[in-house]
């Protein structure tokens, strides 16, 4: 090896080490809040206030999780979140498939105008509508019910848009061929179009699940006590009642995160597609 080559080689190795070091430092910064939360959830409650803080649970105390789950009602909140999230996800996916199909495959008057109406809903922040929506839900007798938590979110302009785009990529001859085989629109929609648009359906499902699971303002407005509180609102409650027991609060935060971690481990690819659907031109 010539001297030049050796210098070059050493520089490349150093560059690589440097890049790994930088990546590792940044990764440590990003993950630190979660790490310290896990550590603190396993410490005895009085150890959390210690100076200097402990960065490793020498003698992990799992009791905080039991307390958060039972006395803190986290288990109950999780069930509520799952019920509401499932209703919203299914509703959003179904209404999006129906509307997306109409915009992609059917011909009807005011089609463009109606499509603009669908997109216009994206320009109205939900926070703008709460004043009337709380009154509407109450007058329908749905205050503090699962239905009341879910109904305003059973359709989104984004979902209809996403499904329309997916259906538009299907070749039009497919519809003609299916028509020759005696398939009506309804049968074509469920037997051919939806199976072929599975990636979009999956992306929309993950996206809908995530946003429904993370809702905060609406459940806060529309539930009155523990019975129907979702996990996000329950966490606030847990923090309030376990003021001096930080380990229980930290354990509750971890419990609230686990379902999404599991979901994302399996479906991250779909989420990425859902999130970037709006960003990428096409």
């Amino acid at each position, binding site marked *: 090896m010539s001297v030049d080559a050796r210098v070059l080689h050493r520089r490349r190795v150093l560059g690589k080490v440097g890049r*790994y070091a*930088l*990546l590792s430092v*940044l*990764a440590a910064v*990003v*993950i630190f*809040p*979660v790490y310290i*939360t896990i550590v*603190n959830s396993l410490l005895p409650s009085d150890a959390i*206030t210690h*100076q200097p803080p402990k960065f490793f649970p020498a003698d992990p105390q799992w009791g905080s999780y039991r307390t958060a789950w039972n006395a803190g009602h986290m288990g109950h909140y999780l069930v509520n979140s799952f019920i509401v999230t499932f209703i919203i996800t299914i509703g959003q996916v179904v*209404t*999006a498939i*129906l*509307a997306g199909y*109409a915009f992609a495959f059917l*011909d*009807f*008057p005011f089609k463009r105008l*109606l499509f603009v109406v*669908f997109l216009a809903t994206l320009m*109205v*922040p*939900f*926070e*703008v*509508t709460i*004043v*009337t*929506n709380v009154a*509407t839900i109450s007058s329908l007798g749905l205050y503090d019910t699962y239905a009341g938590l879910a109904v*305003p979110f*059973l*359709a989104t302009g984004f979902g*209809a848009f996403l499904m329309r785009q997916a259906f538009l990529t299907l070749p039009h001859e497919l519809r003609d061929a299916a028509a020759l085989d005696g398939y009506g*629109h*309804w049968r074509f929609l469920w037997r051919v179009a939806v199976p072929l648009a599975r990636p979009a359906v999956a992306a929309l499902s993950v996206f809908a699940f995530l946003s429904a699971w*993370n809702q*905060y*303002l609406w459940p*806060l407005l529309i539930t009155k006590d523990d019975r129907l509180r979702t996990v*996000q*609102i329950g966490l606030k409650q847990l*923090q309030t009642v376990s003021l001096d027991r*930080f380990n229980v*609060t*930290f354990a509750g*935060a971890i419990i609230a*995160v686990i379902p*999404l971690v599991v979901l*994302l481990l399996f479906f991250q690819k779909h*989420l*990425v597609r859902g*999130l*970037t659907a709006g*960003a*990428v*031109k096409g």
Partner: protein
Amino acid sequence: MAATTSAAPVPGPSPTHRARRRRERVLAALLLVPALIVFGAFVFWPLIHNFYLGFFRNPPFPGLPKHYVGFDQYRDVLTSSDFLDSVRTTVVFALLTVPIGIGAGLGLGVLAHQQLRGIGIYRMIFSSTVATSVAVAAVIFGTLMNPQVGLLPWLGLTTNPTILQNPEWALVAVAVTTVWQTLGLTFILMASGLQSVPDDLLEAARVDGAGTWSRFWHVTLPMMSPTIFFAVVVGSIFAFQSFGQIDLLTQGGPLKKTNVLTYFIYNTLQRQSDPGKAAVLAVALFFLTLLLALAQIRLLERRVSYER
């Protein structure tokens, strides 16, 4: 009288064709109705109803009738110092979170966009905060920032009064929480945008002698501009809608220094039971969001290069 047109009848849609078109319209209506009902009841009606509610002033004590005051309430609320402060706080909050969040997401995206063994682990860590919700992030950061917890003093980050009660620092603390919580999402967005930057273009720039920085500045950044543009528009709309972290961390305080518009609306509606005033604030939030989006689209889209 009329010239007999003995030729073939005027060509037109055959009866079966017309029937099919009618069926298609009926089907389209049936497919659109579920979504339209939801939009009508929970998006457009409340939006319109807000304007109407704003004309009525609610009595200071419940039980008394509300009375019509025309535009008086709009004028009073929209010129009040509480409202103007709240708008300022909302804008400052967006300025604190959006540019820093996108910068951090883009930076991490570029760093993680290289061929290294084990890079997948780093990508997973950088995108990990997508699993947290606003509430989870706020509870984690709020508890870590609790003065009784030993972390901040150990890091030498002490303020007096404590950070979440500190008029100067509370909004910054909320912003830090927000940037961390949205980092995973921004990273995923930026990372997938980087996938679409053609490698041969970067290679060509490298052959032409462009250094790392110059390649980023002259190739990557322009190619990423549609993604960044999207992130800025959507990110600032989200920032204008932030609520949970305020409710959990500061409840609009101290001294209303974190009283963003959404919290102001919530507080007016729930705590003060004043739907009239809350409706005026909601109308204002709607137009501010609309204005913001339109302004960004006008100002920024010209600088976005879509050629691929």
